[in-house]
């Protein structure tokens, strides 16, 4: 790529777009926003094509000492690359999803979304811990506005809860970051990732980071802001929230908590596994009894994120890879599910499940696509969800068969609530006349949903495309974690051929 600062360009394009949108009419603002996100998507594809798989760990690095105390340092590894791709892929979809449904203050709306994109790419590309924090926290401002201005009836409560909850989670992390910067004498993330902090300090540093990431993730029991935020946010807001913002927590753990504090991570493994198990089971059960479609999908997100955290703290390659694929897959699938809800919400203006029914009759194409994403969310083989769940649970099984057992029930419960949702919305008799009169997908809606479906299918059939760029980084992380990895309870015996007679004598009764 020569010396072209492509990451800065990816930040600048939406930023310029956001400023332009702020001063534009509704129509022009939509076009500007779509153009800016598409340019960013194109830049993202260029980025991926030029990413040297198996090459240097940090690529496309840029560094400029613009500020006092921290640097403007950007750079990505495979993990960041994949999450950036997810962001730039979902952004045009978000703009498209708001094309007709947002009619008031369009310029400001588009500006807020473009700003979100800048900040999300910034979070994943930041190579300076304080720069990361700035991008990480700044995301609160546009999201607060998106929920508060364009949200539903209870939007003010939801926006406050979202803002204060996540802010409270992350303030202590800043102090921890400052301590680390002072202790290590550098604020560069790659340098901090290989710095060995004293184990006793790691404990509280880990907790400080965990407070922030657990809220962002969100993990049970600090997930309660998420259903509120999702229900009140406009469709595109939910897509970006579920698709990318929830990934910030997982990204934070894989980038900071695990490599920087391996000992503390091992120490707190059971805390994370325990919370993950509870999250998977409890939120799945909560999802089962929801009447509100968006709330149901929001709770399912918490359950899926539980599998991500379990996979991350499995201390092995499968778990980490599974967690990453789960994040990507969930970003696509839950984003698409919120879009599916948005499609029928735009027609009937209600999220009540009981107001729909029998949509497969009058909206066959919609029902098909909705079914695909339902299956992908459940984890049907051939979809991205299967790869994600299989890998992460295989990883978890190696560290604790009990945790794997409990988390696996989440798949069954997941199937239960998703299929129950689908049955009530798409199958059965057409009890509501207005719902029965709804037209099928428009071209715009096809354009939004089909690319996501294809991506989810691709990830399900050939996950290697997505795993390959991350493999080396995950191997590096796994190697760093190995010194602290807790002992597994499964006691695998691999490659040791025991004589048959002896095996009979000792363990014949198995």
């Amino acid at each position: 790529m020569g010396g072209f600062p492509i990451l800065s360009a990816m930040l600048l394009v939406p930023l310029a777009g956001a400023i332009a949108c702020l001063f534009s009419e509704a129509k022009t603002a939509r076009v500007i926003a779509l153009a800016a996100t598409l340019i960013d998507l194109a830049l993202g594809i260029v980025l991926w094509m030029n990413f040297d798989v198996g090459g240097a760990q940090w690529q496309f690095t840029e560094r400029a000492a613009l500020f006092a105390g921290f640097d403007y340092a950007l750079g990505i590894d495979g993990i960041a690359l994949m999450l950036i791709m997810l962001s730039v892929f979902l952004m045009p979809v978000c703009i498209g999803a708001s094309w007709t449904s947002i009619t008031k203050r369009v310029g400001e709306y588009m500006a807020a979304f473009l700003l979100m994109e800048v900040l999300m790419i910034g979070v994943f590309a930041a190579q300076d811990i304080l720069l990361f924090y700035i991008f990480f926290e700044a995301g609160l401002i546009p999201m607060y506005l998106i929920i508060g201005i364009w949200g539903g009836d209870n939007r003010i409560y939801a926006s406050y809860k979202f803002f204060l909850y996540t802010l409270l989670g992350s303030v202590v992390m800043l102090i921890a970051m400052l301590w680390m910067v002072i202790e290590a004498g550098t604020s560069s993330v790659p340098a901090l990732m290989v710095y060995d902090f004293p184990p006793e300090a790691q404990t509280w540093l880990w907790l400080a980071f965990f407070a922030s990431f657990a809220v962002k993730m969100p993990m049970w029991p600090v997930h309660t802001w998420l259903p509120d935020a999702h229900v009140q946010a406009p469709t595109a807001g939910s897509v970006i929230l579920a698709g990318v913002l929830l990934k910030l927590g997982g990204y934070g753990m894989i980038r900071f908590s695990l490599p920087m504090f391996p000992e503390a991570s091992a120490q707190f493994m059971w805390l994370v596994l325990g919370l993950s198990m509870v999250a998977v089971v409890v939120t799945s059960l909560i999802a089962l009894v929801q009447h509100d479609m968006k709330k149901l999908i929001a709770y399912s997100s918490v359950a899926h994120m539980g599998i991500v955290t379990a996979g991350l703290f499995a201390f092995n390659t499968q778990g980490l890879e599974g967690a990453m694929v789960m994040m990507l897959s969930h970003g696509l699938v839950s984003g698409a599910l919120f879009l599916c809800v948005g499609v029928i919400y735009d027609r009937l203006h209600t999220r009540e499940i009981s107001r729909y029914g029998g949509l497969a009759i009058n909206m066959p194409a919609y029902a098909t696509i909705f079914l695909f994403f339902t299956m992908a969310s459940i984890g049907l083989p051939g979809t991205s969800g299967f790869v994600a769940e299989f890998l992460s649970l295989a990883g978890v099984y190696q560290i604790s068969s009990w945790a794997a057992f409990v988390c696996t029930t989440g798949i069954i419960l997941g199937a239960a609530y998703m299929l129950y949702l689908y049955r009530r919305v798409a199958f059965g008799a057409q009890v509501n006349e207005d719902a029965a009169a709804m037209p099928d997908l428009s071209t715009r809606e096809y354009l939004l949903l089909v690319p996501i479906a294809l991506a989810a299918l691709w990830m399900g059939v050939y996950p290697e495309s997505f795993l390959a760029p991350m493999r080396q980084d995950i191997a590096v992380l796994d190697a760093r974690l190995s010194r602290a990895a807790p002992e597994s309870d499964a006691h695998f015996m691999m490659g040791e051929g025991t004589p048959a007679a002896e095996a009979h004598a000792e363990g014949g009764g198995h």
Partner: protein
Amino acid sequence: MELSNSLGLVLPELILSLSGLVMLLFAAWGGDRLSSAISIACCVALGAAFALVAPSVCAGASGPDTIAFFGQFRADAYAGMAKLMIYAASGAALIVAPRYFERLGEMRAEYPVLVLFAALGMSIMVSASDLLTLYIGLELNSLSAYVLASFLRTNEKSAEAGLKYFVLGALASGILLFGMSLTYGFTGGTSFAAIQAAAAAGEMSTGMLFGLIFVLAGLAFKISAVPFHMWTPDVYEGAPTPVTAFFASAPKVAAVVLLGRVAVEAFGTQADAWRQVVIFAALASIVVGALGAIGQQNLKRLLAYSSINNVGFLLIGLAAATQAGLAAMLVYLAIYVVMTIGSFAALLLLRDAEGNQLETFADIAGLSTTRPALAWCLLLIMFSLAGIPPLMGFWGKLVVFWAAVEANLLALAVLGMAASVIGAFYYLKFVKVMFFDEAADRVKGEADTANWALLAICAVLISPIGYLLTGWLVSIANTAAGSLPLAG
């Protein structure tokens, strides 16, 4: 020789006092029709003083060359940086005022002169290296401020503000004087160098400790740190808005910088003696400032609590008691001044069709649909005050907490940071009211160019663009803090 040297060092103060006296004569004989000319002349005087101070700040003036009048006065870079902020804030208070007072028919020629004298007093305060100089500067500033608070003679609230400020201010001065006399009695000197030497000599005697505490209490009143903050909301609400803008910016700078000098220069060897007081005041200010603001409907009252809240963060920098802590405090002050001036400039732009000032939340409901530019500027300022990145307010907090963590005050940093979330709640209310609520459409007043320009400058400075200045700001603050003759 010594005298001419000294006079050279106090040249900015000389300019201010002489031009103030001349303006006073003009005001006495020329009357109020000269008020705008006098305003401009005072701005020029402040600008001249600013230009005179700036080089010494950049050069990092320190050491014996900066001492004037046999140790009474010290024109080092630390004082210089504070003076720059004070002159700039005073200038801003002059710029926003005419429009406000003219509508009430109260634009009198004394206003700019009083601001000028207050600025002179503050200038002496920050340069004081002797308790007596300190007191002279402080009183010159305070007496001007009392008059300014009750500048709207016919307005009951303004008169009440002036009276309250005067009574409580006199009490605080008394406490301060008492503390100074104790300090003098137990150290045998009034100059900071003598106090430093006496304090370094050994254990701190109970009498000296009492003196220190009383001096701190008197100064805490001036910076409105909890528990000496009670006057702030009333005075801020009652005083004319341009005067409130002035109170919230320049005197805060002067008193905080002075407090830093007294604590770190005079009592620097006994940091443990005052650190717990400062830590308590810091945390209490953050919490009380945040909680008190929650129920407020009046925007000026709310900003008063916000200033109390901000003082808490300033004191965290001081609590570090290191050079880095003082530098962080100066950086935070600079950002705080910009945010304060910006917020009051925005407040002054809230006028209804008849030109009356609007000051409550109900008035700014839905401002973003009727006056988007103003609403967005206020949004930037509020998020900045709340310390949300990527605005400059965050960076101010960052450097302050950085210093605290560096000085191993982890618990203070964690508590302060957590308490800042409470403050975020009411700053968010600003945004909520302006952006989420139905438009009340009361703000109708026509634009005021000078005010707008000031607001625009402040908004740009606290936006992420301001980060490009951080390198420069930090280096200046570091030289300034480095110019203090630290003990040990």
